């Protein structure tokens, strides 16, 4: 009966959300306070109902109730409890419910947190959030219910896709969703500002933390997906420009543009329309990401649903969101005229403008490559894919420009930078960058991209170090403390700026990891019999033999390797091949990864013949761990900003 209770809860939640679209706005128009207050109860009730629905589904999973179709399709009785709970978002229907649950939680949180400060806009916020929630609930109730039963019930479930039985895969979707759904709050605030006509900077200030948090969650979600692909798929890489990867990357790119351009509005009251445009696009791309992944129109790891009805529904839903938001933006555009104009092309404003421009061009590039195959298929019935070389060739120059702007923008003056300002801030970094590129060239780095990246990394780091040194020595002499204490004071007085700069360093570290691991990657595929040895880079690998391996719900074999660096034993590596004991016939590959100081050694077992020969793919990925470190530093930067103490005077 539990699962029927869950189904009943989502149906009720759907009706409650529809009420949530109408009641608060009606309250605002009729100046009826009790109706407005009802809005807050509505989002809370909604959250409780959807939590109940998720609860019943988790309960059915834990009770191994295979009469529930979704449970039967995505788990079996041998599945460990941890993955049994995570199976909630392991398939199409459940992940939509989970998406909606996060949405309802965020809507309720936002309504309670911002209630006092924004009495005039909160009703609209509740209405918008309720509308999006209703859209997803309708999809769940009518087209994608995880509450369906099958009769007669099978005695055993299929299994959770073995590839998903991995910690990386358990955390990757929730983080992505937190990011996607998080952007709905700034979006709703923006729409509320448009609808209420209160188009000052309040909505941007109030959503600052939401934006940052969503952005970093999305960043982590994407990186976790990459890390999972790296060690679980056994192909030695972490990013393949797969349409589904692109689907999460597009909102990230535009979200990054938005994150920067709001600062211009806060400081200079410019870019008003532009910011509204960006947040609408960011949230729409989050929805598009869901659409691409969940509609099944793309053949990929993630596209499990193959029901065209769902695709059409999400398409209609998205068109409604786009029409409504851009329509409102156009109607309200007369309220958005500002007198302030850009003073000079050499200024921080224009650096932000160009940053935005390039991020949008990057997004358009990905958009084109991702959706062109769909377009051609729809129009001509021809199947094409856009190869990774397209993205690599087009994307890299754009990234380089964005990185240079990343070094320039924080240090250049607002309004109009003088020649003096530019020379003072950029002469030494320029020399530092060129000098280090020259040193690296002497020591044998000859490829163009690595050299340019070294230049940019040193240029940008130098600007940051010089800036930090100047400010902290100002503070140390100003209040008579030591230089380290000065650094603390500098950070303390402008947490947002220094948090942002730390994030920039994270980006640089990440890019160095990407460039290093792709430009200097070594790979080799070899066939070996026990006792054979092969060399890759400065390491030699000795294959000792194969042995059995087993876990709770899988059996497998592993190949045993001893790794030597110049005859010195450095590591033992055991790439595995697993067979899960569920309904799945698919073996999975567990790569063996040995982190060394300069990068990863990576072995992936491909095949074992009856005679005991194995085929193994070996990779050496220099600097690849810098990608994950970079993500960590970016997160640290965001934390530094989030834990900003509120100023007493405001």
């Amino acid at each position, binding site marked *: 009966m539990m699962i029927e209770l869950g189904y009943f809860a989502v149906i009720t939640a759907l009706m409650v959300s529809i009420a949530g679209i109408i009641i608060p706005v009606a309250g605002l128009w009729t100046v009826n306070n009790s109706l407005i207050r009802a809005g807050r109860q509505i989002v809370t009730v909604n959250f409780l109902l959807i939590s109940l629905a998720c609860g019943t589904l988790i309960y059915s999973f834990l009770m191994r109730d295979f009469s529930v179709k979704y449970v039967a399709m995505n788990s079996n009785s041998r599945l460990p409890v941890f993955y049994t709970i995570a199976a909630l978002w392991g398939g199409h229907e459940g992940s939509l419910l989970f998406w909606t649950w996060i949405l309802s939680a965020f809507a309720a949180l936002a309504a309670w947190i911002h209630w006092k400060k924004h009495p005039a806009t909160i009703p609209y916020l509740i209405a918008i959030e309720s509308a999006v929630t209703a859209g997803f609930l309708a999809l769940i109730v009518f087209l994608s219910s995880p509450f369906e039963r099958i009769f007669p*019930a099978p005695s055993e479930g299929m299994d959770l896709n073995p590839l998903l039985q991995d910690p990386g895969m358990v955390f990757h979707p929730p983080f992505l969703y937190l990011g996607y759904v998080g952007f709905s709050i700034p979006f709703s605030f923006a729409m509320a500002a448009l609808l209420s006509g209160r188009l000052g900077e309040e909505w941007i200030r109030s959503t600052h933390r939401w934006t940052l948090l969503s952005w970093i969650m999305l960043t982590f979600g994407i990186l976790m997906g990459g890390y999972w692909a790296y060690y679980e798929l056994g192909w030695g890489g972490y990013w393949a420009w797969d349409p589904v990867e692109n689907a999460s990357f597009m909102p990230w790119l535009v979200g990054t543009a938005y994150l920067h351009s709001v600062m211009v509005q806060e400081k200079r009251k410019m870019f008003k329309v532009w910011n509204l445009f960006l947040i609408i696009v960011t949230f729409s791309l989050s929805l598009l990401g869901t659409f691409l992944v969940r509609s099944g129109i793309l053949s990929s790891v993630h596209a499990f649903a193959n029901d065209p009805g769902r695709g059409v529904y999400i398409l209609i839903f998205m068109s409604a969101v786009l029409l409504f938001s851009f329509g409102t933006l156009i109607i309200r555009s007369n309220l958005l005229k500002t007198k302030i104009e850009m003073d000079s092309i050499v200024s921080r404003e224009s650096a932000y403008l160009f940053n935005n421009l390039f991020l949008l*061009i990057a997004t358009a590039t990905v958009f084109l490559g991702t959706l062109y195959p769909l377009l051609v298929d729809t129009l001509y019935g021809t199947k094409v894919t856009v190869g990774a070389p397209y993205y690599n060739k087009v994307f890299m120059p754009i990234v380089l420009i964005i990185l240079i702007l990343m070094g320039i923008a924080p240090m250049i003056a607002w309004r109009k930078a003088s020649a003096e300002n530019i020379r003072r801030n950029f002469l030494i970094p320029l020399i530092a960058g060129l000098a280090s590129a020259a040193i690296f060239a002497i020591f044998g780095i000859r490829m163009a991209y690595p050299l340019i990246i070294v230049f940019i990394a040193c240029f940008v780091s130098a600007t940051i170090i010089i800036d930090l040194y100047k400010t902290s020595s100002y503070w140390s002499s100003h209040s008579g403390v030591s230089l380290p204490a000065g650094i603390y004071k500098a950070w303390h007085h402008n947490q947002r700026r220094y948090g942002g700069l730390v994030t920039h360093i994270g980006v640089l570290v990440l890019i160095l990891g990407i460039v290093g691991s792709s430009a200097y990657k070594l790979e080799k595929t070899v066939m070996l019999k026990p006792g054979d040895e092969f060399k890759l880079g400065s390491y030699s690998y000795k294959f000792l033999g194969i042995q059995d391996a087993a876990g709770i719900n899988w059996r497998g074999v592993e190949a045993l390797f001893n790794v030597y660096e110049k005859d010195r034993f450095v590591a033992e590596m055991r790439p595995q091949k697993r067979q899960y004991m569920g309904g799945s016939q698919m073996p999975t590959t567990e790569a063996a990864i040995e982190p060394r100081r300069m990068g990863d050694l990576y072995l992936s077992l491909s*095949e074992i013949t009856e005679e005991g020969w194995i085929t193994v793919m070996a990779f050496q990925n220099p600097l690849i761990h810098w990608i994950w470190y970079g993500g960590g530093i970016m997160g640290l930067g965001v934390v530094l900003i989030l834990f900003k103490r509120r100023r007493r005077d405001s």
Partner: protein
Amino acid sequence: MTKGRKIGIGVSILIIAGALGYLALGNFGENLIYFYTPSEIRTLSPDYYGRKVRVGGMVVMGSLKVIPNTLRMNFDLTDGAETIQVAFEGVPPDLFKEGTGAVAEGYWDSGKIFHSNMIMAKHSEDYMPIEMKRAGVELPKKDFIKSLQE
């Protein structure tokens, strides 16, 4: 802001956008990879021989021949109507075996043999080229549920 500056910003944006647009579109055509079924590839015009394409179908039962102690293998790929021979060198993905769907990337050599060094890594057994699903070659999920109940 003076008119001159406005024009300056506008022109520089246009130039940059144009350059990048050229870069993007210029690289687009040559990086498009066409996807064919065995029937389609048989009717391919000779102009396309040697061009990188993908072909998808089912691996014919009993056709897979691995050449011992090499990374080479031969197999037949079918869409039900037509069958082509594939010569593959490399490491096939986990799911690759006889009787399942496969997508191979390579070139159609003189209209006789498909040479491939990459078989798409497919991450789920549910996955299969959409046109194969349409043709009903693979058992749909429904049948799987039925088999569970029996």
